[in-house]
Every structure is written in C-alpha cells, then in structure tokens.
C-alpha cells in the first residue's frame, strides 16, 4: 500500500459493494419473482421480499411447463441443454486435443496448411453463415437431433490453439526421455501428454460448458419440435412482449433455473474458469 489513507479503502469497499448490488439486483428480482404468484407480479405489486409461491412455481416449471411452450416442462429442456453443453464441451476437447497433437508432434507435408485451415475458422462464427449451415444440417437429416445441435459447434480454432500453445511449453526432453524408454506416439500421448494437460482440459471444459449451455441462435434455428428445445430458447417463447398473459412467475423461475448450472460452474470452479478465459483469449 503506497498511501494509507483510510478513506481510500473505504471508497474501495463502497464502490465494490455498489457494483455487487447493481450486478446482483436483476437476478435477485428474478428470484423474488419466482416466489410470487402471477397476479402479484402483473399488478406491479411485487415487494423486495420473497413470496410464498416458490414450491408451486418451481414444481410447475420443472415438471409441467406452460401452454406457451406447448406444455413442455422446463426439466426436460434442462436435460436437452445439459446434453448439448456436455456434448459440445467433450466433443471440442476431444477433436482439438487430437488435432493439436498432430500439428505439434508430427512432421508431415500439410502440417502448416492444416493449422491454417483450423486457424481461419476463428473468423467464421456461426452468425455469418447461418442459413447455408442450416441447409447442410437439414440435408443431412440432423434437424431436431442432438447430433445436429452439437456437431456443427464443436469445431473451432480456440481449443486447438489452446492445446497447441500448451504442448509447445512441454519440454522436448520429456518426449526424448519417453522415446528412450521405448514409448510410441500413442503411449506418449496417453501416459505423458494427457496427464500434463489435465488442468488445461478442465479449464477448457468449464468455458465450453458455459458456451454450450448458453447457445441461442443455433438451437433456435434447428429445433422445431418443442421436445428438443433448450432452456434458453424455452424462456424466450414464454414471453411475448405484447401479451399481458405472459406467466411472469414461470418465466422468471425458468430464468433462475437456466442460470443456475453455468453460474454454479463459475463460482465453484473459479480458478479453472479464470484460467480458461484468460488462455483462450491469447
């Protein structure tokens, strides 16, 4: 501490506390709304204290759903979201760790080309090629399937770049030593590289799980059946801005449920989350 003026620390606590309150307030309101009944919210009479409808709201949301989402229960939407998020996270880790291993540890004629082919995908986010991609998924008969939800999103440069960067920091001597010990490419990958990469894998998993869970545009396009809806899509369908009949208590309960898994991941795996965030952006 350069200066020890007490007011500087007081100011810091004040600013941070206000910041935390502003950041938390929208979510707090959602939690409160999820404990009130429809009428209280629609009349604009909701207080800042929890109501007594939590049990009803959460039960109805999770297991029954509303008419707007064709009676689809949020519980099954969350299962869809979970399958998609896990599929994207694991799929991305798997294909990118293999391709990074090839690019870093082998010498072959198209090595540079292969790297650049992967690298350029950084510049092709799904938003700039929505309809042609949609058409291909439709032609492959993958609309309304988990494969269609997951597969197009697992290829990206971030994972490959991250693993490549990490592999470059692994000392050459390790490979030389395992070669002397008689290990081939597969053994080296399994016995040395994977154990060393565990934190990197975990960090990438955390980031990709959040990325997968929060997907919006892609599932919006390729899911037509309500049974395939993810929770982030489901909530949007619950509110039509012009409609006074929006069941806000159910919508906000859904919002709380939809936030819960990724937020818990961030809070409980904060170290991995920060590592993943910082390193995927290099």
């Amino acid at each position: 501490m350069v200066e020890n003026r007490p007011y500087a620390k007081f100011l810091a606590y004040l600013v941070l506390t206000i910041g935390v309150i502003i950041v938390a307030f929208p979510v707090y309101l959602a939690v409160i709304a999820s404990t009130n009944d429809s009428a209280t919210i629609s009349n604009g009479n909701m207080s800042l204290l929890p109501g007594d409808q939590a049990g009803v709201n959460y039960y109805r949301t999770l297991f029954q759903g509303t008419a707007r989402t064709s009676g689809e229960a949020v519980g099954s939407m969350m299962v869809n979201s979970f399958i998609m998020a896990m599929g994207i996270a694991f799929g991305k880790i798997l294909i990118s760790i293999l391709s990074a291993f090839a690019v870093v540890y082998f010498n072959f004629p198209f090595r540079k080309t292969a790297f650049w082919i992967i690298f350029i995908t950084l510049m092709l986010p799904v938003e700039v090629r929505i309809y042609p991609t949609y058409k291909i998924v439709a032609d492959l008969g993958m609309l309304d399937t988990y494969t269609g939800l997951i597969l197009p999103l697992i290829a990206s440069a971030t994972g490959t770049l991250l693993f490549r960067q990490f592999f470059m920091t692994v000392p050459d001597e390790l490979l030389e030593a395992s070669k002397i010990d008689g290990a081939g490419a597969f053994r080296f990958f399994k016995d040395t590289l994977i154990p060393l990469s565990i934190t990197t894998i975990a960090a990438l998993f955390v980031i990709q799980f959040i990325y997968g869970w929060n997907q919006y545009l892609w599932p919006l396009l390729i899911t037509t059946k309500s049974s395939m809806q993810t929770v982030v899509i489901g909530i949007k369908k619950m509110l039509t801005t012009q409609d006074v009949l929006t069941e806000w208590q159910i919508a906000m309960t859904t919002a709380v449920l939809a936030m819960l898994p990724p937020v818990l991941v961030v809070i409980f795996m904060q170290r991995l989350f920060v590592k993943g965030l910082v390193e995927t952006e290099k």
Partner: protein
Amino acid sequence: MAGVTLDTVRKIYAGNVEAVKGVSLDIEDGSFCVLVGPSGCGKSTLLRMIAGLETISGGTVKIGDRIVNQIEPADRDIAMVFQNYALYPHMSVYDNMAYGLRNRGTPKDEIEKRVKEAARILAIESFLARKPRQLSGGQRQRVAMGRAIVRKPQVFLFDEPLSNLDAKLRVQMRVEIKRLQKALGVTSIYVTHDQVEAMTLSDKLVVMSGGQIEQVGSPADVYRRPETRFVATFIGSPPMNILPGTVEGPGRVSVGGQSIAVTDMREGLSAGTPVEVGLRPEDVQAGSAGVSALTMDVDFVEELGATQLFHGKVAGAEFVVQASTGQIPADTRRLTLAIDPANVHLFDPQTTKRLGRV
C-alpha cells in the same frame, strides 16, 4: 541536506509478525550508510519505512529535524532507486527523469537544465529519447539513478540497486555510485545482502539480523572487531572459522588441547568456561611456529589464482586457511598454523556476543 534519525522503529505485520524489532540509528548528514544482512532480516522493510512506502508500527523516523511518520513519500524529500529500477515503461528516458519535477511544478527550463545535467554526469545523454525497454540493464540502472539525482533530495534511498546486474557491471556501477555520492554529498541509505558492496560503499555499516541491528560501525571496525558471532561470520569471505574452546586463564584459551594466546579477552573469565574461538582464514599464518600454534589436517585445496584455500579440520571442526599461492606446497597433509594473539576473536556460546575487553 539532512541526516536521518531512527528511534526504536518497529514494523509489525498482520498476524503479529514483527519484521523490525525496535531499531535506533543515527545517520549523519552527508554520510553513506549501508544496511546489510541476509534476506528477511528487515533491512528492506526499514528502508521502505524511511521512504514512507510502509507504515511505521512504532517509534519515530526523523529526516533532518522533522518527524516524518505521518508524511506522504512525496513530501519527505527523498528519492529512491529500486531493485528492478521501476522505470515508467511507457515514458522516454527524459520523461522518466522529468516526471518527478513536473509533478512538483518545476519550471520547464529548470527541468531541462537539471535532466541534461544529470544525463551528462551519468553519460546517458544519447539515450534521452529512448524507452526503457530499448536500454541495457546497466543503462536502465543509470536512468534510475538519474531520476533520483534530478530531484536534488535530502536523502537517497537504494534498495539493492545492483542485484539485477551481471558481476562485471556490478563492480563498475558500485564504484560510480560511490563516486557520485561523494561528489553530491547527499545522505544515502543503501540496502544490500552483498557484504562486498556493503564494505566498499559504506562510511557507516549497519549489520542486521532477525529484525534487529547486530552492529554499527565503520567497515574496518566491523571487520576488525565483530561484536557478535553473526557479524563475524557474515562479514568477510571466506567466513571466519569458529572453533570450540575453553578458557585456560587470563589471555589464554585452549582449543583441542592446544593452548593459544588472546589479546582481546574479557577479564574475570574463570578457567574452564567454554568459549567460541574465531579465526579469519586470512589471519592465520601457515608453517612458521609463533607464540601459539594449532595443527590442521588438510582435506583438499581450492585454487583461486592469486590465493589458495586449504580446507581441513582443526580440533575436529571445519577450518579454512587462505594463503598466497605457492606459500604452502599444495600436497601438504598436515599444517602448523601460527596464531597472532591480536587476531583471535572470542564469543560467548550462549549469547553469541563478543567476549572482548570492556
């Protein structure tokens, strides 16, 4: 110009860790004071308290006649050279040196005059437009010095400023710092863990250990008459040999059954009192028998060029003798060492304090 006076200065960190345990010290105006000690001895903390970068938990720090405990670093009229130089990476060399003056509203032409002057003294005139990252380690060091000089402060503070340089540059910059300080005559406090730097730079040498001052004095005094066993082994290279011994009578101790005479010995020590006998490797003469002598079994010899180090045992304890090359045949297995009574240091094994004449 001003001196610096510390009165029972304490630093207690959270968790009741006492880093500095009541240090009192008088640093005369214009003198060069070096704080030396192993890492963790509190020397840097003490310096940072003088700078105002750490709060003072107890006692007072005076610069000149002013108690500065509650005064901001900016208003203490000091300048500091940091270990990593702490140059502003986004500013040119000129701006780095001018920054402190601009913050104080010094007129533009005065700033230019002072920066040019400092740059001339430090021979960095040709780098003024460059950014720190374009400079070598030695050049950065000079800029850091320049930034301190232009301010014309009451006190210079140096926090291990040479430890990031290679050995050759370190010696060169050491000489330059000494020359500069003599020329400017500004009170300087210098922290280092390197005893050679400490000996060569200081007018006043302060040896610290465990948050306390072990000894204060001129470098020659500290070397010649170490007040504690810690100082004895810390100052001097290779370090002083310590042998177990017992008092035989006034002016005589016994080491492993061999009797040696001692000039500086406390009166009234009864025979049989255990003592620690300190002998510097460079203070013992091999070969010729003198007033008193010790025998040493040689294990091996280290060649240093001009000198040789004979490693072995005296009275069962590790012992090193430094001798000019060629003075002793390298294949000698057993040495007789002549001991000058004036070069024997005695320490109390319990308190580790010197058992010299009071």
